[in-house]
């Protein structure tokens, strides 16, 4: 099962530095939560990992290979970013399209729609879907190639409590089967309930990384730890 690796990753847009030597890993069999405030560099890191943006320097790889060099990328990595769904395309046609991309049969796509509770809505236009339904469709589409890695940007957004519980259960099962899960989220309490490892990014650099139980001790919680990490980094920077 593949791991994910960011090594000395930097990204500049003109004078603006978005990533500054970011280094981190996500391991198989683990759910790794990727945390950071807005603009910290989470989405940019994920986009570089998935070949949607080029780094200024450094590397982001899947088991040592750039995403763009994977022979069948969607069979290795399932991704849910902010990619769109055509509003006038039905859910069935959308997921069958991703199945064609991955080179898997349409029946696999149809089964995933059923598994994610979208069977009754399969023929409906995606434009009429709720945010939660769109999230489930995006996740089902990411799984169509039976990948061993999941890269998810804010997958819990828009889900109701039942949906969040189902998502947590799904991610746990996926990782327990040996899969690599790398997800970003702002919902810290939900992240704490499912993540094995944390990667915290702040201002484009690694702020903290390691198993959740090493970072979040019994006498504190993830929210406090996260706040302190960000706050301490800002303070150090202000005094430097």
């Amino acid at each position, binding site marked *: 099962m593949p791991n994910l690796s960011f090594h000395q990753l930097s990204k500049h847009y003109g004078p603006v530095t978005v990533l500054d030597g970011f280094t981190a890993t996500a391991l198989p069999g683990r759910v790794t939560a990727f945390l950071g405030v807005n603009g910290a560099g989470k989405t940019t890191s994920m*986009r570089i990992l*998935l*070949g*949607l*943006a*080029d780094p200024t320097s450094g590397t982001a790889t899947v088991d040592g290979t750039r*995403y*763009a060099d994977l022979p069948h*990328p*969607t069979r290795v990595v399932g*991704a849910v*970013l*902010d*990619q*769109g*769904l*055509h*509003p*006038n*395309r*039905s859910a069935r*046609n959308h997921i*069958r*399209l*991703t199945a*064609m*991309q*991955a*080179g898997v049969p349409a029946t696999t796509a149809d089964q995933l729609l059923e598994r994610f509770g979208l069977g009754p809505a399969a023929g409906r236009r995606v434009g009429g879907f709720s945010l939660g339904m769109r999230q489930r469709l995006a996740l089902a*589409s990411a799984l169509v190639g039976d990948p061993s890695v999941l890269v998810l940007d804010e997958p819990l957004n828009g889900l109701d409590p039942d949906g969040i519980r189902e998502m947590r259960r799904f991610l746990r099962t996926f990782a327990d089967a040996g899969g690599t899960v790398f997800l970003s989220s702002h919902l810290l309490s939900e992240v704490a309930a499912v993540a094995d490892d944390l990667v915290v990014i702040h201002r484009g650099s690694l702020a903290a990384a390691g198993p959740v139980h090493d970072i979040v001790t019994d006498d504190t919680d993830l929210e406090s730890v996260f706040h302190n990490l960000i706050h301490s980094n800002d303070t150090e920077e202000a005094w430097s």
Partner: protein
Amino acid sequence: MKTLVSLELYKLRTTPAAWVSLAVTLVLGAASVASNALVPSPGGPAFGSTDHVNHALSVSALTSMVMLAIGVLVVAGEYRHRTIMQTFLGEPRRARVLAAKAVTVLGLGAILGAVTFGIAYAEAVIIYGARGVHSLPVDVVQLWVGATVASALYGLVGVALGALTRNTVAAIVGAIAWVMVIEVGILASALPDVAQWLPAGAAVALTSVGSAAHGMLSPTTAALVLTGWALLISGVAARFSLNREAH
């Protein structure tokens, strides 16, 4: 490449835009043939003359502009709906994606141009035949090939403009403004020697016979010129769009 082209065709047939465009083209094409053939224009060419039939069969302007719009939608539409990211996740080699879109639209343009002209020709045969003109005095093969080639190449130009602008409205409005205002409206009368070498001038030369083709490039030269423009714009699009980040 075969899979990528299949994907592009699947995308087109699972959204309404292509079907609406097809229906509009066929309806407007048929209506324009009937209108141009049957509605007399004062001072216009005599019924059944080469110029009259040429005017009646002038559906390639319609198919060319429709294919230009479809070409734009195939690329810029993906940016508009943000589906381009899913496309690039499935095939990270963007040049292959752009090439597949170009091949798909070229093929569709050729089919749409050929079929629409075929229908127009059949309609014209019936209309003129009913009024005693049993042999149309035009080079049908030239017009048919011209309509096919022009539609295909305008589709390719649309793909290139969509890749360059990533904006459906800007690309379509910009292209129509260039053709209708700059080329046809201004340059065709002000600088005809220059206009004949431009995309619309070459398309007119490629798809016209009779007096409409006087002073224009020969059909073969026009086809080469239009191909050159399509390849040039595609090259510029590839040069400046492939390395831009997808959002």
